[in-house]
């Protein structure tokens, strides 16, 4: 049941996006998050959508995989849509049915905001699907490096991040395993009243916590015994390489931003 999760998962493939410098990918995502807010009409949203799907195509991650992985999130998107549909009371009335009244503005905002939400999720998934956690951390560490001057613990933060990213899949597997073991002992995670189901969480959570703490301790010992003592003077095995494609990708995004700026109303 945990098989389908795609967060924190890396899908190996040969693609431009895979080969981009993690720094440029991070910058790209960050800028994309800002640019999304430029769109405010059909045309601009259309352009953003096209751009997003173009990026997915470039990444060569099978769209079916993304679709199945994002299904649960899709529910949230649809929920956002309905929230706006029912709660926004501006513009003309589109139709009335019993106590439900749908306003034009509600429909518009509902569609746009859920689309915006959806595109953001898609783009960030492309980042995590095409970049190994280690690359992301390396990129982030390098981007944040200037903050070292103000005594911000960049290296520690990056390390913390890479460790947590590294253990997400492990935790998922562990959850799956313990769920199966307790199911075999008659626990029921999938049906029954909510009150009962909350109770079945305990046999799952406690073993998970116990093993996580144990794992954290073991990791700390293993790191110390291999002589780890913080980031100072530590050289890097993986070197980051900013290439032409990185500049080109950012330039493309800049062009998109410009067009959006010109076409927005």
């Amino acid at each position: 049941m945990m098989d389908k999760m795609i967060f924190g998962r890396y899908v190996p493939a040969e693609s431009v996006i895979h080969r981009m410098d993690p720094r440029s990918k991070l910058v790209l995502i960050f800028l994309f998050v800002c640019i999304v807010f430029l769109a405010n009409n059909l045309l601009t949203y259309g352009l953003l959508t096209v751009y997003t799907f173009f990026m997915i195509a470039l990444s060569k991650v099978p769209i079916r995989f993304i679709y199945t992985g994002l299904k649960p999130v899709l529910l949230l998107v649809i929920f956002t849509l309905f929230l706006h549909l029912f709660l926004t009371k501006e513009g003309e009335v589109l139709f009335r049915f019993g106590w439900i009244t749908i306003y034009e503005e509600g429909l518009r905002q509902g569609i746009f905001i859920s689309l915006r939400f959806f595109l953001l999720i898609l783009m960030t998934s492309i980042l995590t699907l095409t970049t190994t956690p280690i690359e992301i951390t390396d990129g982030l560490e390098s981007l944040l490096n200037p903050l070292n001057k103000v005594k911000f613990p960049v290296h520690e933060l990056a390390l913390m991040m890479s460790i947590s990213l590294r253990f997400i899949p492990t935790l998922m597997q562990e959850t799956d395993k313990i769920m199966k073991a307790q199911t075999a002992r008659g626990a029921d995670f999938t049906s029954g009243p909510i009150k009962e189901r909350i109770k079945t969480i305990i046999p799952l959570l406690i073993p998970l916590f116990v093993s996580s703490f144990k794992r954290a301790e073991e990791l700390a010992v293993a790191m110390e015994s291999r002589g780890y003592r913080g980031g100072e003077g530590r050289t890097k095995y993986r070197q980051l390489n900013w290439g032409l494609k990185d500049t080109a990708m950012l330039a493309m995004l800049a062009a998109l931003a410009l067009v959006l700026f010109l076409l927005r109303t």
Partner: protein
Amino acid sequence: MDISLQNVEYRYQVNTPFERPAIKDVSIDIPSGTFLAIIGHTGSGKSTVLQHLNALLKPTEGQVVIGERKIIPEKKQKNLKEIRQRVGIVFQFPEHQLFEETVEKDICFGPMNFGVSEEEAKKRARAAIGQVGLPEEILSKSPFDLSGGQMRRVAIAGVLAMEPDVIVLDEPTAGLDPRGRKEIMDMFYSLHGTRGLSTVLVTHSMEDASRYADQIVIMHNGEVYKKGTPKEIFSSPEGLLKLGLDVPEVVRFQLKMEKSLNIRLSKTCLTMDELTDEIAAVMKRGTAT
């Protein structure tokens, strides 16, 4: 309860780029009362097979028949509790599944999920803790204060207390000391006899497989490579050795002896007694066949 796997295939992570069959075309019959051992390299699909035995996994191809229930890919299954109660699985490293405040409560978790009263569950807990060779005082302790080996036994007791008809063991003795291993295996074997259970054992120990099992299945790359009685399996050990799997020590000794003395005994011996009798017979006759 009879269990039978018919041409079972299972794929993990369907619809993802990682999809591939973990087991394919696996057919195994486990009539009531059988002691079946499954052997195979790490990653050969043993644990995946086991999870079909109580419908934790639904085959993606083929079918699994558990008692009267038929598990097929197309149909969503409901009310699997009865199956789960009748087929108890002891997972690899079962100590990871402990969660209660006390050992007693943890052992009672299974039975009570299946509708056994608290009183009865406690009675079973006391019986089970004795079966796995732990003192009764341990029942009031926290499972997290125990040693690894004790935790393992408690987890096993938790499955025994469910009083299943079929007991499925995934390397139950991995990581235990030699005496502990023997104790646990002997316990399962005597339970198998006295309660008339079916037992399915995944093991890396050829000794255990040849000593306890009536039937052996060898898995290789997700497929059944060979199945038969221990005698059948170990009497032509070449295939096993080619896969890089071991044979029991007695068989290995016999093979070496036959080779260096350039003789052949009349049969493959699985126990030390059998082998000594055979050797004695040969010496009496003066020649081997």
